[in-house]
């Protein structure tokens, strides 16, 4: 059976669609048409793959985590090394695709929202590479948490606009980017950083990130690993998870998305939208949303800025309800512990977001057997989080 989602109207089952002001409807339709055409245009796909290879550093390795495997003493653990991408996270895969679309549609001005700053940095980077003007919206609170990335964006020639409304994090930066887009829609291309927003963004971002899963499939084949496969990825908006999972949806692989439980799912300080959200509309699509009894959007909390978002991509809502993917959540503390463990055992300091995927091994590994194979998407590196690690992890 073909998976074939989203449908023509941009829905993954009951989720997705296009809930935006009328001004954006025609531009979204044009974008969808352009993308559909480009997807089948060899000149476009060749350019996309060649930039990923020559500039972004793909393919990224699939590293056998020998000591981590020995530590759990069960299935073999492999790490998909998106941390080794240029700019330090998977975000650039999607940005390259979208900026090529911007160039094809002759837009000279690029805007983006960013939480951890990784998507902002990737956008500023590729915009610089193509000589495009770049404006990044970032919540003031996140600018404080991720100072290094703010400076990187500036050095790359982007203008970083602090967002002071609401919780001053990713949700507000996204609203502000959409306001800019509605206003400047004629000359501006909005590069969304995750599988969220109105159709065709969730589909487009997933497709551009699917390079992750396609590479893993190929790499596993040459490794000749056993049949039993587990895939793990952290879920903020859900782009690195969608990118890893999508090429495996029709396989027998078991898949786990890991959300941020913040201070705990029994508190109101978490970002576990799939676990605790209710269907609603935020930022242009119908999907699970963290909200209060009156339907006002709730503030999310995670130690990791990239997961600190009260929404989630519509496709994940569908995959959860269909049972194809299981979603779990790990706390700030568990993620910190996992980051320290990976650093010590494998010599890799993960991004705090990716550390959530690593932390899930504690729950998953006891259920696995020797000879089976676990792939964890290491979506980014920890450089940007050193300040947080310094505050939270103490060493003699």
């Amino acid at each position, binding site marked *: 059976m073909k998976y074939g989602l989203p449908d023509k109207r941009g829905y993954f089952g009951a989720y997705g669609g296009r*809930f935006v002001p009328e*001004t954006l409807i025609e531009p979204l339709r044009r974008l969808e048409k352009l993308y559909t055409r480009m997807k089948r245009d060899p000149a476009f796909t060749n350019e996309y793959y060649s930039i990923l290879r020559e500039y972004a550093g793909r393919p990224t390795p699939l590293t056998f985590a020998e000591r981590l495997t020995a530590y759990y003493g069960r299935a073999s653990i492999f790490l998909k090394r998106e941390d080794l991408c240029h700019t330090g996270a998977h975000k650039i895969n999607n940005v390259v695709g979208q900026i090529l679309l911007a160039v094809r549609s002759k837009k000279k001005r690029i805007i983006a929202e960013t939480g951890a700053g990784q998507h902002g940095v990737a956008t500023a980077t590729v915009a610089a590479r193509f000589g495009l003007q770049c404006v990044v919206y970032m919540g003031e609170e996140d600018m404080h948490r991720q100072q290094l990335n703010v400076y990187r964006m500036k050095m790359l020639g982007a203008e970083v606009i602090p967002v002071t409304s609401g919780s001053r994090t990713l949700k507000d930066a996204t*609203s502000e980017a959409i306001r800019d887009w509605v*206003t400047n829609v004629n000359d501006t291309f909005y590069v969304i950083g995750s599988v969220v927003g109105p159709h065709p963004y969730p589909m487009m971002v997933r497709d551009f990130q699917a390079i992750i899963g396609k590479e893993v499939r190929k790499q596993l084949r040459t490794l000749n690993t056993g049949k039993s496969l587990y895939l793990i990825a952290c879920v903020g908006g859900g782009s690195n998870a969608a990118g890893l999972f999508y090429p495996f949806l029709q396989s027998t692989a078991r898949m786990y998305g890991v959300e941020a439980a913040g201070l705990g799912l029994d508190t109101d300080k978490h970002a576990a939208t799939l676990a605790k959200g209710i269907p609603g*509309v935020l930022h242009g699509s119908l999907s699970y949303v963290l909200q209060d009894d009156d339907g006002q959007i709730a503030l999310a909390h995670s130690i990791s800025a990239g997961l600190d978002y009260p929404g989630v991509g519509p496709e994940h809502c569908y995959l959860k309800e269909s049972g194809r993917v299981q979603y779990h959540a790990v706390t700030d503390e568990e993620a910190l512990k996992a980051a320290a463990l990976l650093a010590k055992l494998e010599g890799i300091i993960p991004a705090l977001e990716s550390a959530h995927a690593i932390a899930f091994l504690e729950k998953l590994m006891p259920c696995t057997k020797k000879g089976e194979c676990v792939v964890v998407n290491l979506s980014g590196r920890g450089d940007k989080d050193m300040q947080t690690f310094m505050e939270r992890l103490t060493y003699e």
Partner: protein
Amino acid sequence: MSSFHEDHQSRVTKRLLELRRKNRKAFAVFLTAGYPSLDSTLPLVRLCDEAGIDILELGMPFSDPLADGPIIQACSQQALNNGVTLSWILEQVQAIREFTNLPLVLMGYLNPIFRYGVEKFFRDASSVGVDGVILPEVPLEEVHRFSHHARANSIDIVLLVSPTTPISRIKEIDKTTSGFLYCVSSTGVTGHSTTVDEVRAYVVMVKELAVHPVLVGFGIRSAEHAQQVASVADGVIIGSEFLTKIRSLGQTNGLQMWIRKIRESL
């Protein structure tokens, strides 16, 4: 003109037909419910009514109003801080209906309505005397989710067109809207200022295509501006500028005079 006349005659439609007969333009204002305080909404509505507005748009505040500029964002936030909820707004409408038949439409975002329950929302809104709703996040393709509830409860769903809407789509939207056609004057969020020249040719075109009355909103700032825009449309909607006036003038004669001046210029 067929579909406009065949519409169930809501208060909105009746008022707009009456104005058309008298060759006058409609004046609508947007007021964020519960701004600046919970007990200011009823007196403000009374004041607007007495000053002669034709339609009241009562804004339902939302935590993440992505179609709104800084002024309405700030007012929504303040209203939420004051404790405004959808149920409270419906109670206010009920109280408003005790002193006026002013056509009244609710304008806001979807999430609170989903949470309240779409069917229940339309039923309750109708029973307290709401005449219509404006939901800027709901494009033509998604109206079907709401239209049967709206029809069953005799509530208008007012749809919007904007400068990026192609001609064929303007016609489709005009066919589907009820009450009037909301013509967004420029690309942008609410409160984004525009010049009359930018808006004029576009409004003239919409007006030629539309069967429904065309009311122009987003970014109208002054009596002069309102008059110039209204001269090519069926009326104007003032939101951000009205809220700014509430902030600077309060519930005073000054505010009433500001409304009267615009009303008289149309």
